[in-house]
C-alpha cells in the first residue's frame, strides 16, 4: 500500500468518525425560511443544470407595451437569423471535408486489391500478383490511394513498402523503400503528402517526389494525424511514461504541446487519436481502474479504457456515455460532417458492440450491428469501422487480420450488405465531391 493510499484510508475513517457527531437541529428553521421564499419560474434559466446567480435586475425605466411587442419581435427575428447562420456555417466544412457522394469501394483480399460494387458486392481485381498488397486508403479528395506491399510472405516485424496509385489503379509507384514496422499513415488534406510512423519515428513523404524525411526531435511517436482542415501541422502522441499530444509542422519546425491543460493520468492515456473534420476537437482514450459504479473492472488488467472528446483550444473534456460495467475501445471515427462518432463498447464479459453517438458527448447514441463475442478480458476488439463519405452508413470489418467479413451497415437500420471476406481485408470508400 502506498503512502497516499494509507493516508486516504486514514482520512476516510477520520471523516466518517468526525461526521458522526453531527445531529442537525435546524430543519424547522430552514423550512420556515423556504416556506416564505418564492420559487423561480422554470423558464427563468436557459441552462437548468447550472444555478444562475443574477435573475432579477433593477428596471431602469418603464417600456411602453407597444414598444415591448416590437422589441420582442425584433429579438425573435435576431435569434432566428443567428440560428440560420449557425446551422449554415456548421454544414460548410471546406473541401475535402464534409458530406460527399460515395464513390468506388476498395478492399484487399488475400494479398490483392479489389474494387467492389456496393449494390451487387461483386468485385474486380485492381492489383494482382505483384507482391502481397493490403490496406488501401483513399486520399481525402478520392483521386488517389495508398496501399502497403510486402515483397515476400508477411513476417514479424513486417518489412513493407508504401505505394500510391491513381483511383482507377493506374500509375502505381513506391513512396518508400522497404521499411520495418511501417504503421499509422495518413493523407494530408490537400493530398500532396503522406505522414507515417516507422519503428516509432515520424516521417513525411511528398507525392511530388523525393525521399521521405524523418521529423527529428519529437521522440517516439504514435497515432500521427494531419490537423484539419488546413493540414499545417501533424498531431501525434508522444510515447513516454507520461504521454502527451504534440503538434509539429510537416517540415519539422516548431513542435509544440497541442493539449496542455490536462496531464495524462497514466502511461496508457491519449491513445487512438481521431480529429474532428473541422480540427476543433479530438477523441482519445483514457484508462481507469474502476467503472462509473465505483467497482473495479474484473478483467485481467483490472481496468478498461473510456473514450473522451476534447476541445483542443480549451482542453475541455467530455466522456462519452459509459453504462456501468462497460468500457470503450477501438479507434473512434468521426462522421464526414463531424456530428457523429463511432467507437466500440466493451461489456464486462468481453462482448462488444459498435456505438454511434453524438460527437458533442450529449449522450444521444445508438448501437449498431448487435453484440459480438470478444475475449473475456476485453483485451482486443476484432473489428474496424469507418463512416462512408455520404455519412449514411458504416463500413465494418468483423474479424481479425487473418479472418474477417466486411459489412456495409446503414445507420437508419435498413438491411446490411455483405462486402466479402478475406485475409487483411478492410474496405475504404472513395470520396467524390458533393
Amino acid at each position, binding site marked *: 500500500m502506498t503512502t497516499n493510499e494509507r493516508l486516504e484510508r486514514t482520512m476516510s475513517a477520520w471523516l466518517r468518525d468526525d461526521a458522526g457527531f453531527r445531529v442537525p437541529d435546524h430543519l424547522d428553521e430552514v423550512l420556515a425560511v423556504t416556506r416564505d421564499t418564492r420559487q423561480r*419560474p422554470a423558464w427563468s434559466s436557459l441552462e437548468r443544470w447550472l444555478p444562475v446567480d443574477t435573475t432579477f435586475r433593477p428596471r431602469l425605466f418603464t417600456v411602453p407595451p407597444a414598444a415591448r411587442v416590437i422589441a420582442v419581435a425584433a429579438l425573435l427575428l435576431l435569434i432566428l437569423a443567428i440560428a440560420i447562420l449557425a446551422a449554415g456555417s456548421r454544414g460548410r466544412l471546406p473541401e475535402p471535408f464534409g458530406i460527399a457522394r460515395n464513390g468506388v469501394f476498395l478492399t484487399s483480399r488475400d494479398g490483392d486489391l479489389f474494387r467492389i460494387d456496393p449494390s451487387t458486392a461483386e468485385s474486380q481485381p485492381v492489383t494482382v500478383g505483384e507482391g502481397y498488397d493490403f490496406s488501401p486508403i483513399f486520399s481525402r479528395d478520392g483521386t488517389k490511394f495508398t496501399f502497403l506491399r510486402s515483397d515476400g510472405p508477411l513476417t514479424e516485424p513486417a518489412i513493407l513498402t508504401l505505394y500510391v496509385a491513381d483511383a482507377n489503379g493506374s500509375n502505381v509507384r513506391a513512396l518508400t523503400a522497404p521499411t520495418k514496422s511501417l504503421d499509422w499513415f495518413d493523407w494530408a488534406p490537400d493530398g500532396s503528402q503522406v505522414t507515417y510512423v516507422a519503428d516509432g519515428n515520424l516521417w513525411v513523404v511528398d507525392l511530388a517526389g523525393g525521399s521521405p524525411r524523418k521529423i527529428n526531435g519529437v521522440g517516439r511517436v504514435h497515432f500521427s494525424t494531419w490537423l484539419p482542415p488546413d493540414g499545417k501541422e501533424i498531431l501525434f502522441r508522444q510515447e513516454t511514461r507520461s504521454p502527451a499530444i504534440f503538434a509539429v509542422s510537416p517540415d519539422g519546425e516548431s513542435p509544440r504541446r497541442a493539449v496542455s491543460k490536462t496531464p495524462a493520468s497514466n502511461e496508457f492515456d491519449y491513445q487512438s487519436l481521431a480529429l474532428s473534420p473541422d480540427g476543433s476537437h479530438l477523441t482519445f482514450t483514457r484508462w481507469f481502474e474502476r467503472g462509473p459504479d465505483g467497482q473495479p473492472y474484473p478483467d485481467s488488467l483490472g481496468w478498461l479504457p473510456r473514450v473522451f472528446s476534447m476541445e483542443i483550444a480549451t482542453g475541455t473534456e467530455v466522456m462519452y456515455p459509459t453504462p456501468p460495467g462497460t468500457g470503450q475501445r477501438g479507434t473512434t471515427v468521426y462522421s464526414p460532417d463531424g456530428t457523429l462518432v463511432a467507437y466500440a463498447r466493451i461489456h464486462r464479459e468481453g462482448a462488444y458492440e459498435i456505438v454511434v453517438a453524438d460527437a458533442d458527448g450529449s449522450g444521444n447514441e445508438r448501437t449498431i450491428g448487435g453484440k459480438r463475442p470478444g475475449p473475456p478480458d476485453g483485451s482486443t476488439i476484432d473489428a474496424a469501422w469507418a463512416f462512408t463519405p455520404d455519412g449514411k452508413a458504416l463500413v465494418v470489418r468483423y474479424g481479425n487480420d487473418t479472418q474477417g467479413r466486411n459489412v456495409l451497415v446503414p445507420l437508419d437500420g435498413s438491411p446490411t450488405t455483405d462486402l466479402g471476406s478475406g485475409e487483411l481485408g478492410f474496405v475504404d470508400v472513395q470520396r467524390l465531391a458533393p
Partner: protein
Amino acid sequence: MQRDLVERARKGDHDAFAELAGAAISRLDSAAWLMLRDVEQAKDAVQNALVRAWRDLPTLRDPDRFDAWLHRLLVHACIDEARRLRRHRLDVDLTTISAPSIVDDVSTIEDRDRLERGFLRLEPEMRAVIVLHHYLDLPMPVVAATLGIPLGTAKSRLHRALTEMRAALDADSRVRGDLVEGRA
C-alpha cells in the same frame, strides 16, 4: 419515490420539499461540517443550499439528478462561507475548534488533531473534493460533475490535496518530534 417528491416540489409543493430536505439534511450537515469545521458556518451553508434548492428547483431539468444538484449547491455554499469566514478571521480571534467529545486513546486523538490541522490548511475547493470522494463516496466522475469541472481537474485536485495533506502532516510530525526532544 424521491423522483415523485422532486416532481411535486418542483411544482411548488412545500411538504414534498420538506420531506426531501428532512432526508438530506443530516448528510448535508455532516458534509458541510467536514468542509468548514465550524458548526454555525456549516448550518448557514446548509440553510443557504436548501433555500437555494427550493428557490431554483423548478429550473432543475432532470429530477433524477436532484442529489447531485443538491451536493453542488452545498459545495458552492460552503466555499462561499469559507471565504467569508476567512475574511472574518482577519478581524477577530477564533476560538479553538473543540476536539471530539468521546473518550479515545491519546494517539488517535493526536492523529485526528493532526489530520484536522492539515485539513484546515487546504483551500475550500480541495476540501470539497476530499469530502465528496472520501466521505460521500462519490466516484471521481460524479465528483467532477458535481463540482462542474473536468474529470482530469478533479483528479489532479484530489491528488494535490492529498499531497498537501501529507506534507502538512509530515511537517507537523517534525515539529512535534523537535518539541519532544527539546530542540524547539
